[in-house]
């Protein structure tokens, strides 16, 4: 393949790449740079370079040192497994060699740092104090994600199956189930706030009028708020999964089912042997979309609970927002990076898993 053709091929991704570099890659490095800074105590605009202090504060010194150690070891292993071989086929051997050396040195340095840190910890008895406010907010995000993955996706799948069979009324349901996503988080959030608030108490009134009065309670109170938020989120968002899964279901050729039926397979068999395997990539897509959409949830809690009561619905992105509002720009950047890292790891391992299952 000659240079010119390469260039032509590359030009297909160029527009995407250009927008990307501008809106993601540069801000990413900028965010990273900011995360190494902290404002001084008397001047919030005066950012001082503090190195990885923000990360240490978030993780606590112990976990930070352990993470550095793990990263160091994996870098060294990575280098000695010689993953750069592929590179050396296309390029000069020396490049691969240099990269390998750099990786080993970096890994070694991290490892030494980690060992040194633990030596210090054992000597000085540093107290273990991760930023619980932040990690609790992450926990809340994942609690909602858990609801999204189980309740929301099961509901979406069930409904998609139902509509797939019901050819006549399918059109109607497709329209109706997608109404809520069309409306948007702000409208839904505001409506729900009016419905669920203690005053005027619309939802409780509704429960009473259908004879379920004993279920009426303070939906946005301390025990229920987070679950209410999670369920509202699922209710608002199941339409996305529904539409994708339905489209997936309809790509399965009817002949496959026919053939199975002739072979005497029952409904359950047909479902586990045909429907599920055919849908694997789509199911994984829905799962990843759910995780992304839920961990970064912000509009709904902002409209519905604003993080309350007593911080019980402060999800991770809302926490980042709070930190920004209190002029902790560096700290918030560090939190954002950590959240991004968690999401990247999660999504990529899911994609890998999906590939493994497929093959």
């Amino acid at each position, binding site marked *: 393949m000659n240079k010119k053709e390469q260039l032509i091929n590359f030009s297909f991704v160029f527009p995407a790449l250009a927008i990307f570099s501008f809106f993601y890659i540069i801000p990413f490095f900028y965010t990273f740079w900011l995360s190494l800074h*902290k*404002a001084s*105590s*008397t*001047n*919030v*605009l*005066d950012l001082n370079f503090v190195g990885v202090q923000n990360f240490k504060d978030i993780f606590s010194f112990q976990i930070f040192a352990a993470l550095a150690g793990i990263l160091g070891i994996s870098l060294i292993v990575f280098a000695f497994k010689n993953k750069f071989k592929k590179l050396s086929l296309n390029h000069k051997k020396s490049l691969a060699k240099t990269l390998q050396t750099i990786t080993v040195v970096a890994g070694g340095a991290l490892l030494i740092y980690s060992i040194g840190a633990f030596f210090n910890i054992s000597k000085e008895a540093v107290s273990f*104090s991760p930023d619980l*406010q932040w990690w609790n907010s992450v926990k809340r995000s994942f609690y909602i994600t858990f609801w999204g993955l189980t309740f929301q996706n099961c509901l979406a799948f069930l409904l998609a199956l139902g509509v797939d069979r019901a050819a006549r009324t399918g059109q109607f349901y497709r329209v109706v189930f997608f109404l809520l996503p069309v409306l948007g988080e702000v409208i839904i959030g505001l409506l729900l706030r009016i419905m669920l*608030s*203690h*005053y005027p108490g619309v939802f409780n009134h509704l429960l009473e009028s259908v004879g379920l009065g004993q279920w009426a309670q*303070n939906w*946005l*109170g*301390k025990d229920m*708020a987070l679950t209410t938020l999670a369920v509202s989120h699922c209710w608002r968002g199941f339409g996305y999964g529904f539409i994708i899964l339905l489209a997936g279901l309809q790509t399965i050729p009817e002949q496959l089912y026919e053939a199975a039926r002739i072979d005497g397979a029952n409904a359950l068999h047909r479902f586990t042997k045909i429907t599920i395997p055919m849908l694997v990539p789509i199911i994984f897509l829905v799962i990843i979309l759910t995780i992304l959409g839920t961990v970064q949830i912000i509009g709904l809690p*902002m409209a519905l*609970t*604003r993080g*309350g*009561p*007593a*911080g019980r619905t402060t999800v991770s992105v809302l926490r980042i*927002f*709070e930190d*920004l*509002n*209190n*002029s*902790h*720009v560096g700290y918030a950047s560090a939190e954002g990076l950590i959240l991004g890292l968690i999401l990247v790891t999660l999504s990529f391992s899911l994609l890998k898993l999906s590939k493994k299952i497929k093959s």
Partner: protein
Amino acid sequence: MRNSFIYLIVLAVCFSFAGCNNSQKNSGPQVTIWHWMSDRQDAFEQLAQKYKREKKITVHFELFPHSAYTQKINAAEAANDLPDLFGILGEKRVLASFAKEKKIEDLTPYMEKQNSNWKERFIEICLAVNSFKKDNIYAVKPGIYGVPIDAMSIQFLYNKDLLEREGFASDSPPETFQDFLSIAKSAKDEKDTYGFASGWGETWLIYCFTTNYAFDLMGEEKFLNTIKGEVPYTDPDWIKVFSLFKDLREAGILAPGIITMNNKEAEQIFATNRTFFTFNGSWGVNTYQQINPQLKYATMPPPKANQKHPPAIWAGAGTSFVVNSQSENKKESIDFLKWLTEARQQVFLIKETNNLPSIKGLKKDTPDNMSSFLSNQQYFTHPRLWRINENSRVVEAINRGVQNIVIGAKTPEEVAKEVAKTKERYKNE
């Protein structure tokens, strides 16, 4: 079909380009103001139109939701893109930072300019919250850095009709915290009526309430020493402060959902005669007026929990605008502020937004409901007048702790311990 589609795209693209040119094309100096006060936007825009008629200068009031405002300002500051005039949310530290970095103009020379007597117009406390004295801990050059356009105080209010109906004299509100609790308890006699409601979903109201009683229970000195780090939050006096919230809870007088309630929702409850007492700022008059013009209420001094020290009441400038020192329209901006704080405009703002004026001499233009917020002046204070302010992380811990006490999830002692721990963790910030 395809042609018309392409035509549509071209049209839309043109429109979008035209749109962004539009905003820059207008000739002559223009003043842009950023603020977060959604309830005042209408009145502001009317004033802008009036100003345009009188002085031929266009003023844009750009409103941002409260939750995103600080971030917008921070980002604009980092990009050197601040508007001509803007409000600053947050502690004095933030105002100090802007002043120190010379992002905002020191207005003292303009205020004190000969024959302008601009400075003399204002109520002192309103200017004071925007000023830095000599040798302040922030090391900011002494001066006035913001122009107050209205005043406020955050006070206890009681509903006269409800108190009377329960057999209490409507002009002698409770003086001690115990009396307050027992009167509020009688709300249980009435259907759907509560003893006390306040917008404690918005945490700053909680911090305000807490500091009011911290002054009452330990005095200003000890309170400030806690901030300095010389007195721990686990001090018995602080436990007493936190215990007040437990008392409120145990008396069963709090409106359900009080800690998810926002300010306006609480105002609505008070305006519809459904709570005996509330704790709110003078801006609430506007809502009360809109919902129930017949509402009879008055302010009262904070019911004392202790006889030794006076309680505190937050009061000062409601909204202040600062001037971007790098603005090309500095002169026009300052002129506009001067105009905005003239008696005529201030009276207009009183009428339209029901907020207290920031200038003196408008007593006869201020309705009784509003001037009631100027009573109890002996207790007036403002965090921006204290020589030191608490770290925002600690304030956050206090607010969260109090909310936890109110919903019965934690005891005052636990909360005190947690706050002390937070204080310890961030003591170097």
